[in-house]
């Protein structure tokens, strides 16, 4: 229940991602054009069901296959990671996910084909990837629902600050499966409507998207840096946030203190649900009244435990391009005047806040600074 600001800067040596729109550059370009990757697809994939907003990788078919259809995506993403003896003592890997290929477990339950079991459970999946990608044994597995990637960044930072590593790789993936989509559909928040994050409307909806990403951190200087990180867990209810938004504020206040007088823009969580979207937008507008707020989940869908790292990689591309994509699919009225529905030039800003939230009032945020 405590805030944990990690205020010693960390150098972001490299980032990358894969989404339904492609790699980080292509994803950022697509968002800048206002492209929506989400499409209405059967909630249970090859097993059918109601049409809901999903954004799978273009190369994946609807059926769960063995090996999984998302493996080539991870191979391509891993090829972008700068060379280092990953998984060796001084170069740890932190693998974060919310679902770890649980679609394979669903496929095993449906078919009894044991080939699916190689990628159906967290530790088995990570071990499978470790061997496939040639990593050593210094690989940790972290999961905390939709703030998983932030937790990976936080832990990697602490290992670096403690002098236990020269560099650290945080690697994250989450892919749509009938098991997960069916679960969100049962909750009635993945429904027949496209998400419109932070829009004040009668009915909310999320979309789900495939997403994988990595970040390489070290203690170097220059470039982009994680200037502060914070997490907070409300312990209020096992799915809901405190209705007064205090949990959002508790996570963001240390980030606010670290930001000082910086001119900021904010990449929020913004899935398209109404209550959490309102709490997030209102709290951010109160704490950072001058900072434009965006979410990209109206295009890419929610990439669950990977969203923090996917959106970090897109943010780095946005900084390189000089323009920040707006909140695709959002339309006024919004929960706060700070919500940016259109893209904007980011050259006049000297910091970015990236925030993610999860079931049960779990919150995470970081401050990205850059030269």
């Amino acid at each position, binding site marked *: 229940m405590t805030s944990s600001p990690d205020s010693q800067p960390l150098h972001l040596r490299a980032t990358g991602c894969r989404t339904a729109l492609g790699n980080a550059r292509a994803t950022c370009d697509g968002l800048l054009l206002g492209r929506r990757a989400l499409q209405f697809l059967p909630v249970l994939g090859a097993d059918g069901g109601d049409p809901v907003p999903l954004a799978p990788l273009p190369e994946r078919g609807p059926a769960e296959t063995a090996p999984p259809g998302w493996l080539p995506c991870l191979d391509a993403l891993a090829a972008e990671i700068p060379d280092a003896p990953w998984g060796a003592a001084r170069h740890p890997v932190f693998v974060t996910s919310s679902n770890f290929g649980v679609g394979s477990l669903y496929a095993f339950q449906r078919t009894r084909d044991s080939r699916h079991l190689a990628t159906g459970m967290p530790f088995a999946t990570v071990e499978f990837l470790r061997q496939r990608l040639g990593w050593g044994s210094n690989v940790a597995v972290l999961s905390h629902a939709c703030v998983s990637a932030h937790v990976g960044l936080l832990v990697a930072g602490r290992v670096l600050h403690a002098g236990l590593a020269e560099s650290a790789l945080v690697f994250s993936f989450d892919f749509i499966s009938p098991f997960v989509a069916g679960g969100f559909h*049962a*909750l*009635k*928040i993945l*429904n*027949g*409507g496209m998400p419109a994050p932070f829009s004040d409307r*009668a*009915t*909310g*909806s999320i979309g789900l998207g495939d997403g994988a990403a990595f970040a390489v951190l070290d203690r170097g200087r220059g470039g982009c840096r994680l200037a502060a990180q914070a997490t907070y867990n409300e312990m209020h*209810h*096992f*799915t*809901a946030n405190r209705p007064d938004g205090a949990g959002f504020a508790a996570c963001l206040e240390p980030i606010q203190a670290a930001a000082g007088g910086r001119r900021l823009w904010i990449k929020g969580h913004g899935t398209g*649900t*109404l209550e959490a979207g309102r709490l997030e937008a209102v709290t951010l507008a109160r704490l950072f009244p001058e900072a434009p707020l965006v979410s990209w989940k109206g295009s890419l869908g929610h990439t669950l435990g990977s969203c923090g790292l996917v959106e970090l990689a897109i943010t780095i591309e946005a900084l390189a391009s000089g323009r920040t994509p707006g909140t695709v699919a959002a339309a006024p009225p919004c929960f706060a005047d700070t919500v940016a529905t259109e893209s904007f030039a980011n050259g006049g800003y000297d910091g970015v806040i990236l925030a993610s939230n999860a079931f049960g009032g779990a919150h995470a945020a970081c401050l990205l600074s850059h030269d």
Partner: protein
Amino acid sequence: MADALLVRLKQLIVDTLKLDDLRPEQIPDDEPLIGSGLNLDSIDALELVVQLEKEFGIKVRSSEETRAILSSVAHLAAYVRAHAPADKLPPLP
């Protein structure tokens, strides 16, 4: 004579949510079910809606619709009457 649908819905609420210390007839027709009144939370609401969908062949489309129909037993009954196939409903009083 009591409305058979209201009676059935109250029994379903008690049974589904295992409200052992509550008799169905103690649930008022017009009090909120979520947040106050029975003080159900979102997980209770989900359990209830899943059971309602099974028993009455209805389809609730969103979490907002869930919240609206569970605003009271009377609202719930009106929704079920409007959306359930006739063969799933008890006769009108």
